[in-house]
């Protein structure tokens, strides 16, 4: 099975103080540490597990002109066979639809059976690229995938839905799956492995290498524009209702009725 995995480099904001920079449209990332997006890391592992079971190849794709070599080399050290980086500052990486179109232009040049992405990016949280990529490639898609079982030329996949529901889907190949975290346990890439992975090729592409117009890659058709980014105001507007339980319930019910909620 020949698999493409799309990966993204994101800041780790779990413990960092998040503030907006002077432009008012960007998060100040000067003090962040960066790593592969968590869900993408699981997608890489799932691709490697499928390759180990079924044979084939795993190619990593990344659309980013920043310092992504480390995360790509780590994926290669874990067992990916090759990598493609679209390293072009003209690509509007803020727009998930643009990213999906560029990824589709890259992956569409190749023969493949399966495309995996993470289900969500840890920075913008759009959850859009995987589904949009499937649309661009005109392929079936399953999102939030928690289990993958190959069955002949198809896949049986388990999706995680709202409220804790699980859905089993039978999907034809080629397909796009967006992988939920927790589907597996990502392996470690030892430093010796990362060094050995230097021998594997990272193919670097520009817009001109792809069948996509520069205007489109730059977001000319983009319907997404960042207008303002701000930290939600912390305010205290809670009203504490005093009294015995029955009195409190009556007051609360009155307020809900008055507010049109009941």
């Amino acid at each position, binding site marked *: 099975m020949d698999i493409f995995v799309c990966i993204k480099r994101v800041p*780790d904001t*779990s*413990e*960092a103080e998040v503030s907006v920079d002077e432009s008012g449209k960007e998060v100040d990332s000067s003090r962040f540490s960066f790593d592969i997006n968590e869900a993408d890391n699981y997608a890489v592992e799932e691709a490697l597990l499928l390759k180990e079971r079924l044979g084939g190849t795993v190619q990593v794709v990344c659309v980013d002109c920043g310092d992504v070599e480390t995360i790509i080399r780590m994926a290669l050290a874990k067992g990916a066979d090759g990598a493609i980086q679209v390293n072009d500052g003209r690509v509007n990486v803020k727009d998930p639809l643009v990213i999906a179109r560029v990824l589709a232009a890259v992956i569409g040049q190749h023969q493949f059976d399966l495309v995996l992405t993470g289900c969500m990016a840890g920075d913008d949280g759009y959850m859009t690229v995987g589904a949009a990529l499937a649309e661009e490639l005109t392929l079936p898609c399953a999102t939030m995938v928690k289990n993958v079982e190959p069955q002949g030329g198809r896949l049986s996949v388990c999706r995680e839905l709202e409220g804790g529901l699980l859905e089993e889907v039978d999907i034809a190949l080629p397909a796009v799956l967006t992988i939920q975290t927790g589907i597996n346990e*990502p392996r470690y890439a030892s430093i010796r492995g990362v060094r050995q992975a230097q021998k594997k090729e990272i193919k670097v592409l520009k817009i001109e290498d792809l069948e996509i117009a520069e205007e489109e890659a730059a977001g000319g058709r983009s319907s997404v524009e960042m207008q303002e980014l701000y930290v939600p105001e912390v305010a205290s507007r809670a009203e504490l209702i005093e009294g015995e339980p029955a009195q409190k319930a009556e007051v609360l019910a009155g307020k809900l009725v008055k507010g049109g909620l009941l």
Partner: protein
Amino acid sequence: MDERENGFIQKHDLLGCIQCGRCTGGCPVTARSGLNVRGILRGALDEDLLQSLAGLPEIWDCTACGNCSLRCPKGLKPLDVLVALRSILVEGGVIQPSVRDALESIFREGNPWDKPRAARFDWRRDLDLKVVGPGEAVHCLVFVCCTVAYDPRLQGIAGNLGRLLNYAGVHYGFMEEGETCCASEAYCLGEEGLFEMMVEDNSELLNSYSASRIITISPHCYSAFKNQYPQLRAEILHYTELLAELLREGKMELNRELKERIVYHDPCFLGKQNGVFNDPRFILQQLPGAELVEFERTRERSLCCEGGGGKMWVESESRGERLAAVRVREAKMLGAGVLAAACPFCLLTLEDAVKAEGWEDEIKVAEILEIAGGLIQE
């Protein structure tokens, strides 16, 4: 069998093992784990068994205290055998997620705690400390351990060392830039490639500073620099060696009274592995009003707290009583009000044990730098 496993017997001189059992007899974790060093050394004679030996969960119970290597009458290094077995798993990529995350963090951010590199020096904001850059001549260059740099419980320790050095008029400086993990824990966790890379990078960095001495806060950095960094030019000291020297030479005086019974816990990486037993005790003996008492198991026989050997990131399968709990019980039986540590890992494990017992009001676990830092009149 991969290339590295070839020659395993020769590399570790396993045919020299006479199966005397001194290693297992001195291994502190046998009290709560199935780890049997003697059995592992015997098993490793069959190189086809290495993979299955590496798969034993108790391999991760070793705290790298070094007792087995110290006690071996044939001069073998059983600890290195255990580390080599861990490294088989690391190279295969299948390790506990907490270990994987710590190692990836060392590689990416230069610390095992998944903290941003950019926040390394936040602890010293607004403190009156001296900082030196590469090439600037300095007598004592202070190297702050990752755990001290990032853990809010421990950050004050580094500040206290600066205060004491200011007070004693020492020509010192904290590193202006570049400070990163010594990788001692990466080594113990079996990530030899990462360790080698960090040794190379750190040696170049530390040699770029014109320092006569490098003062470490953690015994783990100390032991690594002293024994595993052959290219370092500066003399390596643990801070307890420097403070004892300053007290002996009369350059510093601890002049506030501390009426406490204090028991000192020897860190394995300072005591057993490097023979620094007297200097921490000398400092504690200079505290006006304090009484220093000793554990029954002390100095070379000191009981490990289980904080080293990468154990901060490994959850043992054993449900047996933690050695740190044994240690704090012994301290309580001695009537000690202060359990003194000279290592960030010892401090954290012992303090956790005191909290688990609910003895916070009876025993205070304190770093020597916390104690001494509070006893100077600047």
